[in-house]
């Protein structure tokens, strides 16, 4: 019987009402009295030397207030990078300066060169056209391997080369891995491209800077997933504004998918310009501008090898990846191909020896950073593709080859050779569930039926592991993170019993206002309507690290449980006083405190009122009031896992791939709101199918972005996608957080690309195209047709 409230109920989202009536408050909906508008003039070439910028004509135009260029930022810090990688020789990565506006050189199409501030946006845009830029074209580097060649043009002249770092993991295991390959009975090799993507949340980025000169207070309204992180980075490292003089507000945010984690130049610019001009300054990105200024995702070129013994046991894996950093290091870029990728290379399997090499490369392209899954989709895609290829080479069932090598349910906790310890999981269970729901047993008959219609049907399987809930702060500190990764919550109980929660997590579509209230309501036994969730404003929320990496419930929810438990403990003391009983005898259930074994009780509101009107209250031993804050630092990552099955039909005449069914069986541990969890999985699968079949961010050899708008970049539409069958009934609760939750936000985007491509290859193989062992994403009709017809 489904629950109708509390933990486990598909409670309707309370935030929907404002969104459905046009009453959301997104950053672009904010217009401040006296606000001026900023327009960024951006480089149209990928690489060039700035010989001069003549702004005189622009400054003389109607409505123009001021034109800014790099010279206005002397003494201002550059955009900081939040993660330092140490290379395989023990040396720090090469870390170039990243100025707010381009200094001396432009390094990618979209690199901002000047900003016009005017009374209206139209005036600012018109004036920008009057700026004379003297930029001397320089040869651009776009391809990563070419960028590393001897004599290649350097993106940053003061660095020794375009190599950011050459990382080996685990370097000490390298010789043993080589040895295992030398002894292998079979080695499967796969070279692949995990193509560059653009996250494309539907709300473009916006920044509104405001300044109160009388109190020296700055405020930034911004489209961010983590306002406290922006305040810390921008205040401490860029503009030199202490936290108590800087407020960052991220109101309703229209999707993030990672690309709104990072601290962007436009945020620092608007905050800086508002202080200079002593009036609000607003910038709203156009979509075309988003394509050349939002951090991109993925962009790995990889060779993976899997070694097996003569009984088909995995004995070793080695991978070599080139990871594109773009022209500058975005906030968390260096961590994505390393710690968020290398540590996942064990997947769900007992492979004893693994070596991962990653070369991160600067090119004249937009910076690349975390996008939904961030490193984990790249790891999963390689692994699940190479296992599928190995199964074909060995003539064994891809399901059985996986099962044979799975970490078994009785082997947890399981320490992998890539430095992580999985707490729980049951991979056979999720695999069984997926095969059952997708009617894998009936596939052969369906394939036969397709064949009669001249179509090629295929079934693709992928099993993923994810590391969510980043992360123990002391661990990530050792790995180069320049931030802690705890989360926070304040539970402010009001006098009449209602509760105001202030969380460091941020909701930009995830529904925290509903689910976090479900958790607190269940713990106390009151109606969820009495609990209000506040987030997104550094002025009232405790310092927290925000929302990404599927961490909100696992880390933020744990902080919330901790703070709520502190409140309950104090409330029990108050109840004990009111009931003249021993605290040990007080029980809380259904919003009522009872003395165990008696009918003496006081309700929740009676206790909260006593806390704030302490007439009958143990003032000598306890403070009045009922408000607690907790910070929660996780002791480990969480490890959701799941089995994904994709059934496709390929039209051999056109190469077109149609997805007929998509099944996901996920183990997310405990689930607070099944409806919301299913929605998260749907959205992740859609982005994964988008990567597998449609999306590709393309640069030409001169560094021009060819796919720079929705006319050219294939966003998945309603009729491109199937319905999804999703299941989360396989539950192995997380053992190290209080809710036993694992996180569900990225799973869909991680598990689905290899399932789709495995299905396409399966269809072609079954259709007699046995020479086709791999197709790079997106598996567009032209690529599929060309692969089928290649001889």
């Amino acid at each position: 019987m489904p629950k109708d409230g509390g933990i486990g109920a598909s409670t309707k989202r309370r935030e929907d009402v404002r969104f459905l009536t046009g009453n959301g408050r997104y950053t672009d909906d904010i217009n401040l009295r006296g606000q001026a508008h900023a327009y960024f003039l951006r480089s149209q070439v990928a690489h060039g030397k700035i010989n001069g910028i003549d702004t005189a004509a622009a400054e003389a135009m109607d409505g123009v207030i001021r034109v800014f260029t790099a010279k206005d930022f002397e003494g201002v810090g550059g955009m900081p990078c939040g993660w330092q990688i140490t290379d395989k020789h023990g040396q720090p990565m090469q870390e170039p300066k990243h100025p707010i506006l381009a200094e001396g050189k432009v390094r990618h199409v979209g690199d901002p060169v000047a900003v016009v501030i005017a009374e209206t946006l139209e005036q600012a845009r018109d004036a920008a056209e009057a700026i004379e830029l003297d930029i001397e074209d320089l040869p651009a580097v776009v391809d990563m391997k070419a960028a590393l060649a001897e004599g290649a043009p350097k993106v940053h002249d003061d660095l020794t080369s375009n190599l950011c770092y050459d990382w080996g993991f685990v370097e000490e295991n390298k010789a043993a891995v080589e040895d295992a390959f030398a002894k292998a009975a079979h080695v499967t090799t796969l070279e692949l491209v995990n193509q560059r993507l653009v996250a494309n949340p539907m709300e473009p980025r916006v920044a509104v800077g405001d300044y109160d000169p009388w109190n020296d207070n700055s405020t930034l309204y911004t489209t961010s997933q983590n306002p406290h992180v922006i305040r810390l980075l921008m205040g401490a490292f860029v503009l030199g504004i202490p936290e108590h003089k800087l407020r960052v507000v991220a109101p309703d945010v229209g999707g993030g998918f990672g690309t709104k984690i990072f601290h962007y130049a436009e945020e620092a610019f608007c905050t800086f310009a508002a202080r200079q001009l002593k009036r609000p300054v607003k910038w709203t990105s156009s979509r075309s501008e988003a394509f050349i200024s939002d951090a991109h995702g993925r962009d790995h070129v990889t060779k993976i090898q899997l070694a097996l013994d003569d009984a088909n046991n995995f004995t070793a894996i080695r991978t070599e990846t080139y990871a594109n950093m773009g022209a500058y290091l975005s906030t968390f870029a260096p961590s994505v191909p390393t710690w968020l990728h290398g540590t996942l290379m064990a997947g769900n399997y007992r492979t004893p020896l693994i070596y991962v090499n990653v070369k991160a490369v600067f090119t004249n392209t937009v910076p690349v950073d975390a996008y939904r899954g961030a490193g984990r989709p790249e790891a999963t895609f390689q692994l699940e593709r190479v296992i599928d290829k190995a199964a074909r080479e060995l003539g064994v069932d891809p399901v059985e080859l996986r099962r044979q090598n799975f970490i078994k349910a009785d082997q947890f906790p399981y320490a992998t050779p890539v430095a992580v310890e999985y707490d729980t999981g049951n991979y056979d269970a999720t695999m069984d569930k997926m095969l059952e729901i997708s009617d894998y047993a009936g596939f052969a008959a369906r394939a036969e039926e397709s064949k009669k219609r001249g179509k090629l049907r295929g079934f693709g399987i992928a099993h993923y592991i994810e590391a969510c809930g980043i992360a123990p702060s002391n661990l990530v500190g050792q790995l180069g993170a320049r931030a802690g990764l705890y989360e926070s919550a304040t539970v402010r109980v009001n006098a009449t019993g209602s509760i105001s929660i202030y969380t460091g997590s941020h909701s930009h579509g995830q529904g925290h206002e509903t689910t976090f209230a479900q958790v607190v309501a269940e713990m106390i036994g009151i109606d969820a309507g009495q609990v209000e969730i506040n987030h997104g404003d550094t002025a009232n929320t405790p310092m927290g690290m925000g929302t990404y990496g599927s961490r909100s419930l696992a880390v933020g929810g744990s902080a919330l449980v901790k703070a709520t438990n502190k409140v309950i403990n104090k409330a029990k003391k108050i109840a004990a006083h009111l009931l003249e009983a021993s605290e040990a005898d007080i029980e809380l259930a259904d919003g009522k405190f009872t003395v165990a074994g008696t009918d003496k009780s006081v309700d929740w509101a009676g206790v909260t009122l006593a806390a704030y009107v302490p007439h009958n209250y143990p003032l000598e031993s306890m403070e009045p009031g009922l408000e607690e804050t907790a910070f929660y630092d996780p002791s480990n990552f969480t490890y959701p896992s799941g089995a994904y099955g994709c059934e496709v039909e390929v039209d051999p005449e056109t190469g077109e791939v149609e997805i007929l069914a998509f099944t996901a069986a996920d183990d997310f541990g405990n689930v607070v709101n099944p409806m919301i969890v299913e929605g998260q999985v749907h959205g992740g699968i859609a982005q994964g199918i988008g990567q597998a079949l449609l999306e590709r961010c393309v640069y030409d050899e001169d560094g021009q972005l060819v796919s720079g708008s929705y006319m050219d970049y294939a966003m998945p539409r309603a009729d491109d996608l199937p319905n999804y069958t999703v299941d989360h009934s396989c539950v192995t609760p997380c053992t190290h957080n209080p809710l036993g939750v694992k996180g569900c936000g990225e799973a869909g985007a991680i598990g689905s690309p290899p399932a789709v491509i495995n299905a396409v290859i399966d269809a072609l193989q079954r259709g007699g195209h046995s020479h086709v062992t791999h197709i790079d994403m997106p598996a567009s009709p032209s690529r599929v047709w060309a692969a089928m017809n290649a001889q």
Partner: protein
Amino acid sequence: MTKVTLTVNGRSMSGQAEGRTLLSSFLREELGLTGTHVGCDTSQCGACVVHMDGQAVKSCTVLAQDVDGASVTTIEGMANADGSLGTIQQAFQDHHGLQCGFCTPGMVMASAALLAENPKPTEAEVRHYLEGNICRCTGYHNIVKAVMAASGQDAGGAVAAE
């Protein structure tokens, strides 16, 4: 600048527009109706869909000066008279047809136009009709369910609890 007067959600409203001012920015900036969203600059995403003289239009494809005197319905005009959610809006909430909410106004307006034209669409017709509206969060599954439910047809799948 020219004065433009529209009937918006049944009320006469006026503002100033340049020749290049789009209806989407006129609604948002001049009339303060920020429920209509702008998600692209190539008329692809559909976040800005409104109804103009009974037709669904992408308001970023319309020049405000060209439609002086028109009758426009925006997302702000879609609730019932008592303020409760209209049928389509309610179906979107019941079936979790939205996450971040940014594409939602355009989705609701496009869905309303579809159901006015075709009160009992098939699922394939819903998917085809909504091709001009991009959602990055939901994967469309629950949007399609919501529109089917709003049309009085069995949407299948789970419905939210209160």
